[in-house]
């Protein structure tokens, strides 16, 4: 007799765990099945080298929805976010641009580079703040289906229409521009200082296979601007204990509501009888029965692997097949014997507690993209560097440090494939690039871990290594995510739901997909 649950959640990443927690909180008997030996998916902390702990993949937190933190009482379950205070952009000429947490200090620093930009900066912040507020309600909304004529959907569309209309002309047009422009063009309207524009536009290219001059990247910029910690927009933080601690906190919350979590449990199939799910099958043949199955895996895995595509409508299958993943980012994690000393700001300093961004100019980023477009990794890539041990000393042995380097672009479809040799060459390129600004880096490396999109796919299961479970392009957002007509977390199989970042509103450790999916499931059950 197979075990029977109200709901089985496939995948123990943050969205799966959040969905499970909300379902358990509502009194459902819930089981989470995670393929790996630990929960977290791409939000994990691992001791890769003895004594050195890394947020192996995802490395900063800011997008996690405050209502989720509240609902699941995450701080009580161990979530502790430490702010990342600054951003340092070292420049090839030996100078730097620093974005300090203190507004006065930040303005002074920017003034040094461009008085005009320093003037414009506050206004820019205000506008983006408004834009983020304009988009916020949409992030917590199940996307209405614009083709449907049912009263319910029309109501949703009308509500959306009213929301946009209530924004007023200026904000609506501002938002429209953000949705359609390139981050470079958008920032060009505000600023002249190249490193400022480049560092800002860098958040517009993260996780997408587009350059800063490609239309559509301004929205990703906003997406990243939306992060909020304790209500402060655009504050990035670092979880004490690494990103895995966020997953652990959510898992603890889920357990506290009664959810069960099984690791090392690989689901191979979703059981379907007469277009209705009855549970899942594990790799060892074990069947777990459930009325509701929630997949937090990406759309390609859910619809083309877990379910027999023959059971699905043809238009959904073809929409999933053409859904764009195109992983374009890699990571290099370093164990260091000493702190890097930057030529522009030698020695120890507050800048080492923040992010260090290798993004000297828009052209630099664009050239990095140009190379990747044709199947090579960037010879001079964009780097986003943090030193977690500076903020949380427990991450490394005393006196030693860990460094996390996010790298773009590293195309999944590297011409000739990602051989071991290529992978190491990629690692060398990253180290060489950063060493130009911090010459002592090379001699201080004790260990290094290089992660390509192929590794991300193999380890976490994210298709093509895309960190958002599918690119955040305009044509893959809202009611088009992951497929027209299937953007409301339901699937053509009764009882089977999706809750991953491949659904609205998408990636980053945001958790909104997991929460909205759980709400949809509970609503359906109450009908």
């Amino acid at each position, binding site marked *: 007799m197979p075990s029977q649950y109200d709901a089985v959640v496939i995948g123990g990443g943050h969205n799966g765990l959040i969905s499970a927690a909300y379902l358990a909180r509502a009194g459902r008997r819930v089981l989470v099945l995670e393929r790996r030996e630990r929960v977290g998916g791409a939000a994990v902390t691992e001791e890769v080298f003895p004594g050195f702990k890394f947020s192996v993949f995802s490395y900063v937190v800011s997008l996690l929805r405050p209502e989720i933190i509240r609902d699941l009482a995450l701080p009580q379950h161990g979530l502790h976010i430490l702010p990342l205070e600054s951003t340092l952009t070292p420049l090839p000429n030996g100078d730097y641009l620093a974005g300090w947490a203190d507004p006065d200090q930040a303005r002074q620093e920017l003034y040094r580079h461009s008085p005009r930009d320093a003037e414009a900066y506050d206004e820019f912040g205000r506008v983006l703040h408004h834009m983020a507020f304009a988009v916020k309600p949409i992030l917590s909304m199940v996307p209405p289906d*614009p*083709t*449907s004529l049912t009263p319910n959907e029309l109501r949703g569309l009308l509500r959306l229409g009213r929301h*946009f*209309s209530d*924004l*007023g*002309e200026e904000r*609506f*047009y501002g938002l*429209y*521009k953000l949705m*359609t*422009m*390139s981050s470079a*063009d958008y920032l060009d*309207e505000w600023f002249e200082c190249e490193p400022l524009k480049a560092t800002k536009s860098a958040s517009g290219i993260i996780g997408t296979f*587009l350059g800063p*001059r*490609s*239309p*559509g990247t301004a929205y990703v910029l906003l997406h990243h601007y939306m992060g909020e910690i304790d209500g402060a927009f655009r504050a990035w933080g670092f979880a004490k204990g690494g990103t895995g601690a966020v997953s652990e906190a959510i898992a603890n919350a889920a357990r506290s509501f009664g959810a069960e979590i099984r690791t090392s449990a690989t689901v191979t199939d979703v059981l379907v009888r007469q277009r209705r799910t009855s549970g899942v099958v594990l790799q060892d043949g074990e069947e777990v029965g459930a009325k509701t199955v929630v997949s937090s895996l990406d759309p390609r895995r859910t619809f083309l692997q877990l379910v027999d595509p023959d059971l699905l409508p043809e*238009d959904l299958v073809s929409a999933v097949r*053409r859904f*764009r993943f195109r992983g374009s980012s890699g990571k290099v994690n370093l164990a260091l014997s000493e702190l890097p000393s930057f030529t522009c700001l030698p020695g120890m300093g507050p800048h080492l507690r923040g992010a260090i961004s290798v993004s000297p100019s828009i*052209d630099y980023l*664009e*050239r990095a993209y*140009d190379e990747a*477009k*044709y199947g090579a990794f960037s010879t001079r890539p964009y780097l986003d560097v943090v030193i977690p041990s500076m903020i949380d000393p427990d991450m490394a042995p005393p006196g030693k440090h860990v460094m996390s380097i996010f790298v773009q672009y590293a195309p999944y479809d590297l011409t000739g494939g990602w051989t071991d040799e290529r992978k190491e060459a990629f690692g060398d390129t990253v180290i060489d690039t950063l060493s130009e600004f911090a010459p002592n880096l090379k001699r201080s490396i004790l260990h290094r871990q290089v992660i390509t999109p192929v590794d991300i796919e193999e380890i976490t299961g994210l298709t093509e290594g895309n960190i958002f479970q599918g690119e955040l*392009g*305009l*044509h893959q957002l809202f*009611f*088009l995510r992951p497929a*027209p*007509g299937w953007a409301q977390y339901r699937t053509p199989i009764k009882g089977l739901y999706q809750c991953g970042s491949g659904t609205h509103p998408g990636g980053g450790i945001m958790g909104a997909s997991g929460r909205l999916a759980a709400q949809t499931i509970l609503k359906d059950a109450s009908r």
Partner: protein
Amino acid sequence: MTQKSYDAIVLGGDANGLVAAGYLARAGLRVRLLEAREEPGAELSQTEVVPGFRCDTAVHDVGWIPPAILRDFGLASRGLTPLAPDPSVVAPQRDAPPLVLWREPAHTQEALRSHSSRDAERWPRFTALAHRLAGFLRRLYENSPPQPVFRGATEGVSLLPLAWHLRRLGPQDMMELLRVFPMSVAEWLDEWFENDLLKGTIGAGGITAIRQGPRSGGTAFVFLHHLVGADVGVLRPRGLIRGGAARFATAVAEAAEAMGATISYGEPVLQIITRDGQAQGVVLSDGEEIRGRCIVSSLDPHRTFIELVPGDQLDPHFARAVSNIKFRGSVGRVNLALERMPRFHGIDGDPSQLGGVISISPSLDYLERAYDRVKHGQHTHRPYLECVFPSLNDESLAPPGKHVMSITVQYVPLQSNATAWTGADSEALEQTVLETLSEYAPNLPDIIAGSEVLAPNDLATRFGMREGHLYRGELTLDQILFMRPLPGWSRYRTPIEGLFLCGPGCHPGGGIAGGAGLLAVREILRSLKKS
């Protein structure tokens, strides 16, 4: 001294200015059109490349001619002959037979089989879908742009026809439209086709007169924009005119005069006279002032507001928004006088195949690489070329047996490696074009009788177009519909009372002959009635 006074003064005698002048005169207004050049049409002009050889200067395709304009201006009776070449597009290859796109989708399907049977199968479905999506755009282009943020119930009601047309597409096409609109043309084509040459040749439509590569978002929209008004399965050209594009301008100018408009050539305007936020007239180059109840400018928005309106009359916020409009001309022109027809691989000089567009666009990557160069301000080594032989359709353009070749080149930078464009750059541009073409038609260098080269800078100077942009502003998603030329000012009115815009810098943009002029007139007449 009696001052001259008109009901409407139209600035600029391009297609849109002429159309606006004609319609305003027909409505009973006293209209004076002032054109800086000595002839109508602005970029729709013709030059003598060398004695005996005449060729389209800047544009060989006038784009979609809205049926209302054809009818109201009696263009057919004025001898205007739009051409429908078949095949419409020929894409030569260096060492293999060309790709030939015929007007009939079934005919093209046959022709495609030798390139890719899979693509051949998909061609009719793709062209039918593209035609339906472009059909929706056409509805949008026949009216003033919809206003997404409305100030009252009546403006809200104006959205209803739009919603109706959108819904009429059916759920599948509607979703497809919303999905495809912001995509890159390359991504969209990759979903449909496998053959590089076919994708490059279709994809070239998505980069028409825009400084974006086929992998840039929004180029799928540009592709659809240029399908508006075309027959199913015909990608381009839409508006080839026997005798050249300038014929369209002269016919419209004649008609506008017949409708009662006064047209003055060689009259550049120095300033728009504005008092208390009200446009009152214009100052000509000799200092003469002409009064008008309204001023209708078909010049680009930057020229109109920043150069012609006195600075103190403009809200600085608005002025900044105008300065932020992206122009970014990237189209160059090389026009050749030829001793005979070039011999392309697999076609030789067979004129029956070459009456349409010859497209040098071997792959999407080829186009993208060309864009990469211009993006960084450099010359493109292997550009996208769109060629037409106007003399094949009108023998009077060249001496007997000889020909002219009109070549549109993309991309050409505004500057050359961050320094001013020089004559040497123009020579290099011509050289690049000839080298590129001779890979497909090896005899080309030996048959050249003369040439004319125009970089974006030259187009800017000659036709008064900012940054040489043929459409007076790029057709990027943030600059179309209710965003064109500026959000809140997309209905041809301006912050200056009595000053209107009617050029392609407004909705529906370039590539539609007289479209903006036609729509602007409706708003102007409505506005004059009120006042």
